């Protein structure tokens, strides 16, 4: 009966004059993107979407891209990923951590399709992961916050205590204390990546506690907006995207993500036939991390200091986690002059000296 229904349906479509078969130039590569949140105007998925648009702009007819947004990291994700893989896409880019196990499963079934997965820790023959060194931007924004703060208290609204988020808090704290060792950083957890109401509430709590520079590791613009809506004696530092639109007066800068060049490199090498899957954790050197244009209130000498720091990160001369790294208990975890290994960074489960809040367990 099922077959009969299918035939009838196909016949019906033929009668209706289904016109999806119109011929147009075949692209060299078809790419499918999977986004975790709705696109909106700023945020994690939005930055990946900018990357997709950059890819289309750079490669024109050679590439065809498709995307699905708001794909929850539950069982539906596997279907979306598989649908891309089975409908002629050469490359599937899954842009959130929670897709990892689904990408792994589907990649094993489609050996001729390449898979890229953002921020995971698994890989395979046709399955590579990529991520950015967000902490580089965090350190820079910490330096700026350290210069701008008068109350010597900074506030941080954070989603969940995974290593990536903890790296950001610690790098921000180290940056701020590199210019003012009396600074302390207070953290409030929202336990959710996207919850504008709770993010705003957390921001207001931090303001009430005297924090005068606030940043966040959550997906919405709520923290930046809360600062703008307050009495404007505090500053906001955005994340993911340049959020100055949401805090025209009080937005100092933001750590921004840039995926476009990476996507273009990968797709070009796929077209040339030279692509070989390899994992990448890129920062300033790879053009994946930058900061948004500085607020006019930031003094010129601070701006110059930031430019120097960025140049030395691009050259690989400076790493934000260069010893001594001291935890909250005062123990030296990394000797002076040593640079923290990537594997230690990826297992970071402690706060450094200067974070006033307790590490959640």
């Amino acid at each position, binding site marked *: 009966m099922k077959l009969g229904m299918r035939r009838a*349906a*196909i016949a019906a*479509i033929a009668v209706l004059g289904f016109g*999806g078969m119109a011929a147009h130039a075949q692209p060299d590569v078809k790419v499918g993107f999977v986004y975790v949140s709705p696109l909106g105007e700023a945020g994690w998925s939005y930055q990946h979407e900018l990357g997709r648009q950059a890819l289309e702009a750079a490669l024109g007819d050679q590439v065809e891209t498709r995307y699905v947004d708001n794909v929850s990291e*539950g069982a539906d994700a596997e279907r979306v990923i*598989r649908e891309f893989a089975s409908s002629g896409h050469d490359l599937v880019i899954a842009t959130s951590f929670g897709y990892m196990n689904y990408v792994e499963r589907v990649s094993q079934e489609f050996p001729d399709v390449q898979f890229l997965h953002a921020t995971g820790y698994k890989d395979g023959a046709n399955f590579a992961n990529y991520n950015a060194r967000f902490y580089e931007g965090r350190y820079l924004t910490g330096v700026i916050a350290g210069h701008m703060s008068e109350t010597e208290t900074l506030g941080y609204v954070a989603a*969940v205590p*995974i290593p990536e988020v903890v790296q950001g808090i610690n790098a921000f704290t180290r940056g701020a204390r590199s210019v003012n060792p009396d600074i302390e950083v207070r953290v409030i957890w929202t336990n959710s990546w996207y919850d504008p109401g709770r993010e705003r509430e957390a921001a207001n709590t931090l303001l009430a506690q005297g924090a005068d520079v606030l940043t966040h590791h959550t997906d919405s613009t709520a923290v930046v907006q809360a600062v703008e809506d307050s009495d404007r004696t505090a500053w906001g530092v955005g994340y993911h995207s340049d959020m100055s639109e949401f805090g025209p007066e009080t937005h100092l800068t933001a750590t921004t993500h840039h995926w476009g060049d990476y996507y273009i490199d990968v797709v070009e090498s796929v077209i040339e036939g030279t692509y070989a899957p390899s994992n990448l954790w890129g920062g300033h050197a790879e053009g994946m991390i930058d900061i948004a244009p500085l607020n006019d209130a930031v003094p010129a000498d601070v701006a110059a200091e930031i430019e120097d720091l960025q140049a030395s990160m691009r050259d690989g001369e400076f790493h934000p986690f260069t010893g001594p790294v001291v935890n909250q208990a005062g123990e030296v975890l990394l000797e002076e002059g040593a640079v923290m290994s990537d594997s230690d960074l990826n297992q970071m489960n402690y706060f450094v000296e200067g974070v006033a809040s307790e590490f959640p367990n």
Partner: protein
Amino acid sequence: MLDWPIRIVRRDRPLARMRYLSPLMAIVLMMLTGMLIFLALGRDPAEGFYTFFIRPISSLYGFGELLLKATPLMLCGIGLAIGFRANVWNIGAEGQFMLGAAGATGVALTFPNLPAFLLLPLMVVSGALAGMAWGAIPAWLKTRFNANEILVSLMLVYVAGFLVSWLVFSPWRDPMGFGFPQTEMLSSAALLPRILPGTRLNIAIFLAIALVAITWIVLQHTAIGFRLRVTGRSRSAAGYAGFSIQRAVWIGLLCGGGAAGIAGMTEVAGPMGQLTDKIALGYGFAAIIVAFLGRLHPLGVLLASLLMALLFLGGEQVQQHMNLPKSISMVFQGLLLFYLLGADLLVNYRLKWNG
């Protein structure tokens, strides 16, 4: 006073046959309106129709996905329909689903070495019990303090969400998972066997269909089913007949919670393979639509769960293949409900022209 040209007048006798035809009318009207929407978006409506309603199930794999997505909807929907028949308004199947998922995961993590033929039934039972326990809270508060079960069951959804978050962040967190909120992958013995090669479909669909069949028999052919129906139609009549309203509350919420709990089990032991804080995808809420679209009738629930599953699948496909927003799924769901309510109105009322 403004004199409307049309008035709504109660029919002397409701159109009994139309009660069962109105969902079909709503579906046809939804599809026609959908075609107009595709047209308004500047797309070929036939292509839109094909991509939304046919393409998702045009392969064996797609058919498997439809049944896979329908399974938790069917389970949650049938449980809710039992309560709704007795006017017991359990809005918290989503939370009962999460508790069921957690209960089943707890068993799987505690007894990783049990063989599948013991472990899987144990997981089903613990999932059902956990869901029932979550349903028992509003039932107890309702029967003891007359607390509104709509509010209590709904608020418990958020509590359940925090509970699952806590479990995957703390005691059950995968030690090898770099701190991400997830349990380790369940052992293969804790995974429901797949039944169609090349698809993700597993034996849970049989469990769901069996529960639908059992519910049908119990509701239509036993005294319990009769009592629930009478309680739903008229509480005073039920009281005169000596039927306990309190018992109906317990039955409604325990059946709803138990079925939703089993649905949670089938999700962790099926397509997820682990517990994360993303376990719930709104099945418990979508199942409310399923129950009403299915006229609170077991067979109707079965068909409605398939349709709702198709609406989810279709939305993904129009974005993947036509670059249309996935949220069009929600538009279709809204249209369906709108037409269903409209058609239901006309079952009991008619339009009368003035003049």
